[in-house]
């Protein structure tokens, strides 16, 4: 990767000699945001500082409470009812917080995105593999996001064309103006509506004593088809830790201009995001569990994912409407974050400008890729008769299967003392992170091999 001539000139200047003219437009926009952070820190305004720094963590976590994830939680609830999967969602988000804290830390300390660092530190081969994995899983996941928006809109009588148009318009609308802060705040405003799943959960009037009992005892443990259980375990993991989250949070932390001084608030941002996402995910699960009492009936409507219709039948139109709106929000937010992560990865690996702090004219590839992947996914979802539920669940499983390689490189980067200095992983962090990789690998592999052997009629 070669730096531009302008970069070569700027690099030779000492820090003290730098003037605003030597800064790129991206630097200037970022430094204005950092000026506010600096002022808040000097004034000791901790809550304002948290407001300024928060964003990448919450967006990543709530972005991952996306369409396929909500479908996974609701399917698990509708299939097994209250029990093991409810606390399991909390466990998977605890795993996600460990992984995402590393992303935030590496991004803030090195000021580089994941794709760029893997490519520079481990060579182009590994960098392109990582970007290839991401592009593939992102495309599949984006298709699933449009599918879920389609499901939500269908409840209100709107067709797939509206779903495709809504997603594309949203992506294009948020990308303009050349400022990361603006993009992040719009996405955060949208993310608030992820809370609709908790509203829906309250409206279905669950047995709260049973909810509490499930949380504490992890029981009753699911019975029935082993393969279905593995599918739902793998897709629940895939619903909380995925390759795009790693790319997105590290790149967004660097793009936002976070530094090692912001690590404490960055951790709070990540933990808050994980807590909120777990709460909202549990809400979706509880809504699904309301369907279990009706034998999970109706979820195979609308070519395989008729949750809102089934809820209307089981719990009333209000619950169904709130849930359908939640599905639309979940898909829409994820379209923003996943398309952004694809743009970051493409820009980082090709070595061109990749920042929301640049105008679309100056970062054509970054913005172009973000819109292009959304367009392709929207086009595919318009194909009539697509197996919606299967796409949504398998998108998460695929992400789970490809995740271990992404996490291994993340651990290597976060443990790298040459890069991270005193902010490198401590021994216990590495132990926990390696245990997570092992767990994710076993679950993804178990489902992959078991279902493959069934498909070829060996078992």
């Amino acid at each position: 990767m070669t730096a531009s001539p302008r970069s070569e000139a700027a690099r030779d200047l000492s820090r003290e000699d730098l003037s605003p003219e030597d800064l790129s437009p991206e630097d200037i926009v970022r430094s204005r945001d950092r000026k506010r952070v600096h002022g808040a820190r000097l004034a000791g305004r901790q809550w304002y500082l948290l407001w300024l720094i928060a964003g990448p963590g919450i967006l990543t976590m709530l972005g991952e409470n996306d369409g396929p994830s909500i479908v996974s939680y609701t399917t698990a609830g509708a299939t097994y009812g209250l029990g093991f999967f409810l606390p399991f969602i909390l466990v998977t988000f605890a795993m996600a917080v460990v992984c995402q804290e590393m992303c935030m830390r590496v991004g803030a300390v090195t000021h580089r995105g994941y794709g760029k660092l893997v490519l520079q530190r481990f060579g182009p081969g590994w960098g392109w593999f990582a970007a290839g994995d991401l592009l593939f899983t992102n495309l599949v996941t984006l298709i699933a996001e449009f599918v879920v928006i389609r499901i939500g809109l269908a409840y209100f009588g709107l067709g797939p064309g509206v779903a495709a148009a809504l997603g594309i318009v949203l992506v294009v609308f948020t990308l303009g103006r050349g400022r990361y802060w603006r993009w992040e705040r719009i996405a955060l405003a949208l993310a608030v509506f992820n809370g609709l799943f908790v509203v829906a959960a309250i409206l279905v009037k669950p047995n709260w004593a049973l909810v509490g009992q499930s949380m504490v005892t992890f029981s009753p443990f699911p019975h029935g088809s082993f393969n279905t259980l593995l599918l739902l375990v793998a897709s629940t993991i895939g619903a909380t830790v995925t390759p795009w989250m790693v790319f997105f949070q590290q790149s967004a932390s660097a793009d936002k201009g976070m530094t090692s001084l912001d690590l404490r608030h960055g951790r709070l941002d990540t933990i808050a995001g994980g807590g909120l996402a777990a709460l909202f995910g549990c809400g979706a699960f509880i809504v699904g569990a309301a369907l279990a009492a009706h034998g999970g009936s109706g979820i195979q409507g609308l070519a395989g994912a008729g949750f809102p219709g089934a809820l209307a039948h089981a719990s009333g139109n209000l619950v169904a409407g709130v849930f359908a709106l939640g599905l639309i929000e979940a898909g829409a937010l994820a379209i923003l974050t996943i398309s952004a992560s694809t743009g970051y990865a493409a820009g980082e690996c090709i070595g061109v400008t990749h920042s929301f702090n640049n105008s679309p004219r100056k970062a054509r590839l970054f913005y172009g890729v973000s819109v292009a992947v959304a367009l392709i996914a929207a086009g595919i979802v318009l194909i009539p008769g697509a197996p919606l539920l299967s796409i949504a669940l398998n998108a998460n499983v695929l992400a789970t299967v490809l995740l271990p390689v992404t996490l291994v490189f993340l651990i290597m980067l976060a443990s790298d003392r040459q890069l991270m200095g005193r902010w490198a992983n401590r021994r216990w962090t590495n132990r926990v992170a390696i245990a997570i990789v092992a767990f994710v690998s076993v679950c993804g592999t178990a489902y992959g091999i078991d279902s493959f052997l069934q498909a070829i009629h060996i078992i």
Partner: protein
Amino acid sequence: MRDATKRPAATPPPTPPKLATRHNGADLSSYLEPDQLVADTDRPVPRAQLTRRVSTALWILRIFTILVGAMVIYVFFSQLGS
């Protein structure tokens, strides 16, 4: 292309007091850390020297995930067929 090996590792960011004393004046660059400028992040970090054992382990993991991923994709399409 610059020789990445001659480039030192990403330098640690400045300490808070140093940053605090430099925020006066119109120079926006003082709000960014020295290695945070686009010009600096464009510079590659040095390549990691992976041992043969680590490289082999990474390749095994890579091939393994591709195989399992292919199984998942096969199952997905076979379910479509049925």
